[in-house]
């Protein structure tokens, strides 16, 4: 399975077991820390982008002197649908009410108006008096009822729970019958909170804003998907800045490791000279050094990467939601998308392996052209 040179290289590591172990642990932790710091913002960015793609292209809300106010459904839908480029208009009923453990977002949901993000996630729709709750919603003393306080206070029957993997956007969500939602937030009959508008082309979002605004006889505010993405990108940048600061000591630690390894390898120049005198070629020595370094570096990088992967993509990473997004009430378990992880993992492996292995090669390459006698530094008589 292993050739003689590989076994010899491994034995060489075992001759200094504590030194090798210490190097391995240090490398593993450096990879784990750097990996986590690099993977997490990337994963969060990718996941949020995917989620935002499932949101409406434009959200339109009515404004008055006091701020946002309900808009009449019939007149609003008619006005929006008359704008060229608009594909669909969906009035939404939603709001924030108090639950047993803190504020919750309620959404009134109709069979033919299910949001894209929840399509396929619902096995049934809530009847009047029933609710479907997100994974982070605590239903209080009784597991089957949920007490909500808004304009009215009422107990609802919990008929289903949304999957934990949708926690990124359903964690504190309560889905209910639209009439129940209307009562709870005090919304008059025939009115909606806002309009979710989809357009024919993604790049038309900004272009039709002026037409949309002009088609309403009252002031409105439109938020596009691109604006939402920009908003979240801004929040992520705060986290990224902190990450960049934290990466600096990690990279410095890596530089220190490489420097120590180079110094250690250069210190063995005399040993390499003796080996060459015994018939080892430069190629043999390079292979020997390569096997020895890989014996430590490969397992360390592998374990370190796995650790960072588990930390970022493993369930229960709610700590990060608090840190990066400020969700300090009912923080969700993050189920992030590992789509961009391969690039980061390869970058990490390259960042760690290349300098470490290069540091081991230097003495062998330095000795390639040197006289063996000079390498050994013989002090004998002439």
């Amino acid at each position: 399975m292993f050739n003689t040179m590989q076994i010899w290289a491994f034995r060489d590591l075992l001759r200094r077991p504590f030194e090798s172990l210490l190097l391995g642990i240090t490398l593993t932790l450096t990879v784990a820390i750097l990996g986590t710091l690099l993977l997490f913002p990337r994963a969060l960015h990718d996941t949020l982008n995917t989620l935002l793609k499932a949101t409406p292209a434009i959200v339109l809300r009515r404004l008055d002197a006091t701020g946002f106010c309900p808009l009449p459904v019939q007149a609003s839908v008619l006005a929006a649908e008359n704008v060229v480029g608009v594909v669909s208009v969906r009035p939404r009923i939603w709001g924030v009410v108090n639950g047993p453990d803190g504020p919750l977002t309620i959404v009134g949901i109709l069979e033919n108006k299910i949001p894209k993000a929840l399509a396929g996630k619902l096995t049934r729709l809530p009847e009047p008096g029933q609710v479907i709750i997100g994974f982070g919603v605590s239903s209080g003393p009784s597991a089957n009822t949920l007490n909500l306080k808004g304009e009215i206070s009422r107990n609802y029957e919990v008929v289903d729970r949304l999957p934990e993997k949708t926690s990124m956007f359903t964690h504190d969500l309560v889905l209910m019958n639209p009439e129940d939602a209307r009562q709870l937030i005090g919304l008059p009959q025939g009115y909606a909170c806002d309009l979710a508008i989809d357009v024919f082309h993604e790049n038309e979002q900004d272009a039709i804003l002026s037409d949309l605004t002009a088609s309403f006889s009252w002031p409105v505010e439109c938020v596009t998907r691109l604006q939402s993405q920009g908003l979240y990108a801004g929040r992520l940048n705060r986290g990224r800045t902190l990450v960049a600061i934290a990466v600096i000591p990690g990279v410095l630690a890596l530089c220190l490791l490489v420097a120590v390894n180079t110094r250690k390898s250069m210190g063995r120049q005399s040993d390499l000279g003796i080996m060459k005198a015994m018939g080892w070629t430069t190629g043999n020595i390079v292979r020997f050094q390569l096997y020895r370094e890989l014996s430590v570096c490969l397992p360390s990088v592998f374990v370190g990467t796995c650790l960072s992967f588990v930390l970022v993509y493993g369930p229960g990473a709610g700590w990060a939601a608090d840190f990066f997004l400020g969700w300090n009430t009912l923080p969700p378990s993050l189920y992030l998308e590992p789509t961009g992880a391969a690039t980061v993992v390869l970058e990490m492996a390259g960042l760690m392996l290349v300098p470490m292995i290069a540091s081991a090669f230097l003495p062998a390459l330095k000795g390639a052209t040197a006289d063996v006698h000079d390498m050994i530094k013989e002090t004998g008589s002439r």
Partner: protein
Amino acid sequence: MSSAIACRDICVVFPTGNKKERSVLDKINVNFQAGKINIITGPVGAGKTTLLNILAGLTRPTSGEVIVNNKKVSRWTGPHRERWRRQAGIVFQHDHLLHDLTVLENIMLPLIPLGYPLSTCRRQSMEALKKVGLLHHAGSLAKSLSGGERQKTTIARAIVNQPNFIFADEPVAHLDAESSRQMMDLLHHHACQNAVVIVAAHGLNQDTLPENALCYRLQNGVLNPLSS
């Protein structure tokens, strides 16, 4: 075909500072043949170690050529000389063992790059250790050995791969008379098996010399044959 190594007009000049130079070897011309031990004697500083280093390909002469089996070794590039050294067993004046390795591992060192299985390397090394009488020290660290034991270990390391050329620099300097005779007999045995054996020694002990040894004296940069 028996092995042979020859020097053609080998000169070595060392700089001594202040733009001055010192000639250590001055046009050395000699043929070393297999079958007999070749012994180079001379006073301290005569250039014996330098000559052995040049012959073993560890360093290059200032001018002249080393010819091994009609090939000019001293003109070869690094990789060729590295491969040539696989045919050579070297006993250094100072032991130059790897002190973190055990005695057995030190002796296995020349065999590892040859690609033999580890068990073969181990068996051959144990045989070499047995020949120098250090079998009981196989598992000891090299740094724990006495001066004489280290010298025996370096001799075992030099002969472990049955080389065609053995270059031994003061191989018995730290040994008692009995051990010296045994080690010279061992080198003589290899010479009889068609290896070119060249030994550098600053003094000649007639009791330890094999009967048919060829002796040379190196003095003032010139190598002259002596009667055996």
